[in-house]
């Protein structure tokens, strides 16, 4: 918890190496930190600043701009119910109220058992599947009230863990390039080797 693990430092160095300028790796590294701890800690931001040659304030400045980065712990499952216009037209406001009743928390809060954080969010780009939601950024479309309750029961029973990895996991597949295949020509002469 806190600073990046040795394994993640190695991952961070590889990510930094793919960009012409190190600072371009800042958002990807904040995702690595969030994946490690489930949220972005002050210690992780200090560590990222060291790795990129930035100040802690510069890292916080970028981190605080973006919705996905959490500055405090959240539930294992972040349930984002879309409240964009297409979902609103098809009942998202009632769905959010229903979710608040089912979970016993208001949107923005976490259940007492720490399992689920509920949020009402802006458009998540699944308008043809409205009303929709995402669990840790994995989509569920055409959500009815009954369907929501079933989803919550499955999350509590742990039966959909393969579908919904813990909060912070942005991508379970990473781009991998053999060093010989990496051209690096566009990269201002910076490191040619890039493996992820």
């Amino acid at each position: 918890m806190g600073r990046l693990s040795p394994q993640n430092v190695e991952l961070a160095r590889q990510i930094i190496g793919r960009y012409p300028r190190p600072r371009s790796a800042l958002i990807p590294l904040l995702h690595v930190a969030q994946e490690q701890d489930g949220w972005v800690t002050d210690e992780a931001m200090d560590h990222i600043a060291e790795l990129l040659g930035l100040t802690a304030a510069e890292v916080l400045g970028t981190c605080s701009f973006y919705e996905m980065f959490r500055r405090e712990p959240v539930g294992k499952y972040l349930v984002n119910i879309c409240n964009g216009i297409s979902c609103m037209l098809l009942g998202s406001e009632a769905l959010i109220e229903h979710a608040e009743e089912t979970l016993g928390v208001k949107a923005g809060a976490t259940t007492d058992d720490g399992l689920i954080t509920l949020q009402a969010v802006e458009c998540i780009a699944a308008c043809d599947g409205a009303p929709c939601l995402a669990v840790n950024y994995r989509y569920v479309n055409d959500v009815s009230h009954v369907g929501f309750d079933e989803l919550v029961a499955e999350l509590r029973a742990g039966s959909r863990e393969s579908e919904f990895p813990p909060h912070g996991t942005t991508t379970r597949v990473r781009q991998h390039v053999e060093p010989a295949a990496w051209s690096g020509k566009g990269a201002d002469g910076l490191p040619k080797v890039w493996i992820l």
Partner: protein
Amino acid sequence: MAKAMRPPIVMARFGVDDGHTLEGYLRTGGYEGLRKAIGMGPEAVHAEVEASGLTGRSGGAGFPAARKWSLLAPGKPSYVVVNGDESEPGFAKDRPLMERDPHQLIEGSLICAFATGSAQVFLYVRGEMALAQERLAQALTDAYAAGYAGTNIMGTGVDIDVVLHWGAGAYIVGEETALIESLEGHRGMPRLKPPFFPAVKGVYMQPTIVNNVETLSNLPWIVLNGGAEFAAMGVNRSLGMRMFTLSGHVNRPGNFEVELASMTFRDLFTAPEYGAGIRDGNQLKAFLVGASFPWLFEEHLDIKLDIDEVQQAGSMLGSGIVVMDDTTCAVRAAWNLVRFFAHESCGKCTPCREGLSWLEKIMHRIETGTGREDDLDLLLDVGDNITPGLAWPPKQTTICPLGPSGVAPIISSVQRFRDEYLLHVKEGGCPRGRH
């Protein structure tokens, strides 16, 4: 009535179960466009794209892709940035393009880089789209391993790298200069144009092409079939096929790729193979062709999905079409849209940062029962400070168009449904009650 449906271009592999894999992609003609493009040379590829009339497939401006490439200033290195930050309410078509046909986007990006002399592509994907990232990561890994990307592509001596990058949640990053700021590791705040036109001073102040996912996904087909074949579909500036996300109160929401200028909005909403009619047999109240743009109404049903026709009607042809039936509260819908833009304002320009939050608060009080009759004038007055004259196309007191985008739904709804606003004031809230 609409012309017969044409076979899709960018959605052609949506029916192929393994179309997202390298094997499935190659089996269905994948990377043949890139091979042909490299054989033709950059100038010939550019000429084909110019002949195709392909325009940007994100907003409604209809700017030709080939002309955007022509603006690229000399100077190396130059970069290609793929804008995969789809976030506009009602738009849900780039996400399935990335999830279901990632190689097509990679191939299109490589063709663009080859034609514009760039050796480096940054593929910027919206942070919330986990499956799109995973599919693209796997596709890039496979493309590199098979020699379709990186060093010495297909043995031709051409080198182009593609880096998969991911965002972290900010609508404004869909604006190209904000996207560049974000790619450089900063807060996603737009840059002033001039001087920071991406084609001149883009990523790391180098010449940069920023193209949308769907725009690039069309390139393999255009190279393989020729620009003239693409331009044979549609009329004037509205050429080729284009994806639209149809959502809201229709019986059959979905993504549809249609020949431009071949059908009317009425066709799109009612034809059984498209929207299949408005739900419950209800009447149309209004429809959006992009959350940022003025609303359209019943009298616009017979205009075509055509860039110029929609502009003449006072709006712009975006990619997300949202249908509202007559059970919809106009105030509630406008409030939802204004709230979105107020929430997504980056804070750089005062009229947008302050003005949109005021507008949201005024809309909220009208809808929930503490509005005043003079709030209608106040809404328009605040709006006028963001977009002087409340004209269309909008003027702006801000660096980017996000501010005026948040005013558009207010102008549309106040002008058209003034009585509905007044009823809210008189009755102390929404006459339709809870929503």
